[in-house]
């Protein structure tokens, strides 16, 4: 038995993804667009929360926000978050690559 810290949840169902459109790329495209919409909604919610908290606790000067630059640590953190975002939105392409590798 694998140690509990080494266990990876399956994330994908075993059976092949059904094909809904005549072109399999269209199925991928659709999945990407849905994922993209989800991510955008997550972003909006987070912005909304942020602005409400800032409003309640203190003040936010918009010019400060425009002028803000990420330091190296923030830059690296954003890169890993972006990488995770790319993997979520385009997971079907990763899956297609995985299926090729396993074929």
């Amino acid at each position, binding site marked *: 038995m694998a140690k509990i810290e080494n266990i990876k949840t399956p994330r994908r169902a075993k059976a092949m993804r059904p094909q809904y459109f005549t072109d399999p790329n269209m199925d*991928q495209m659709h999945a990407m667009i849905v994922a993209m919409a989800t991510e955008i909604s997550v972003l909006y919610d987070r912005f909304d929360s942020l602005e409400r908290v800032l409003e309640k606790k203190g003040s936010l000067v918009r010019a400060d926000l425009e002028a803000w630059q990420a330091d*190296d640590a923030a830059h690296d953190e954003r890169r890993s978050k*972006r990488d995770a975002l*790319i993997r979520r939105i385009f997971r079907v392409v990763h899956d*297609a*690559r995985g299926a090729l590798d396993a074929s």
Partner: protein
Amino acid sequence: MTRVFQEVHAVLPQATLDEAARQEFINQLGKHVLNEFTPGTRVAYERDVLPTFKREHGREPTDRHEIRKVMIEHPFYRMTSSFQRTVQEMMWDSVDESIQRQLPDLIDTSRKIAAGNTIGSISLKDGFEIPRYVSENDHHAMPGGYSGDLCDGDITAGALYDRGAFIYTQGLFGPRMDGIGKAASIMARRLWPGLAPKKILEIGCTAGGSTVGLKAMFPDAEVHAIDVGAAVLRYAHARAESLGVPLHFHQMSGEALEFDDASFDMICCLASLHETSLTATHNIFKEAFRVLKPGGRFLVSELPPYEGVDAWTQFVRDWDTYNNAEPYWGRVHELDFSDVATQAGFDRTHYGQGFGTGVAEANALTSAVEVQNKKFMGSTRGGGQAWYAWMTKAG
């Protein structure tokens, strides 16, 4: 990972917070596609496409064209190609948008620089006829192409190229975008020890980043550069002046140089010939031969030849021909530059070609930049070596 920032100069388009975020995302997505998706096309070929081809033809594909015909039917290849193309379009668009926002200011700045006390020069011609291989095609899908000239004093094409290419190459050309010029200079010194050119000409300079690199490495030389688009030249001039580098820009075709015979010690074509036609390439070599002094050097950095490269690699490198508005890309790979050189008058015994100094080495950025993304110009040259042809005019 160490970040490379583009050096700010007076006409570099600045990005807002959102524009910068968009550019960073596109950059990262592009890298993700190239590193994680694109390698899967090889697997698709070996496991799906090749067995079918062999069954149907009783043999393996013999060239890149045969591979392309069958690969473009494969869903995974279609998907990765669609990604690569989309990322390229979005990259240009993200820069285009920021230029649009600040265009009047950029033009005004460029005008003021040109009208002030300059250390270099620019000469443009009314009614200059742009060669069709430039005017009729937006190379590497850059909106407006190299010769776009939107209004009086326009600099858009130069700004788009300078900032777009920095993002496209992921900063590999260095903060000043001068890596190709520096690399060529290092290569030239290796080839010809003691080289001390008094006059240098660069043919096809675009935004003048490579020209700045040439001047940096040969500070005692008088450096001239030509291109056909007025907007790229206005930008290149303002850019060089702002960086304090004295350069002389001319609106001129490489096929019809308006310089005296035997007037230059060194001429360079740096990653520019693949944007011209085959006929133009021949004419440019002839003109280079004419304006070189006896004993003068001609250095070309280009796409490496397909010869001796397996059909799959050829197919991969040829992606830009069909997907990135590079109609001459494939043909340049097939060109025998030694033939072009001898037809132009160069002696075969004074001709050489092969891989040499790359931009990463030139900028000493090998450790600083993530060079695993080596896709510049479809080959491994981005992070590693560049391919050169070099020749000397006998005398």
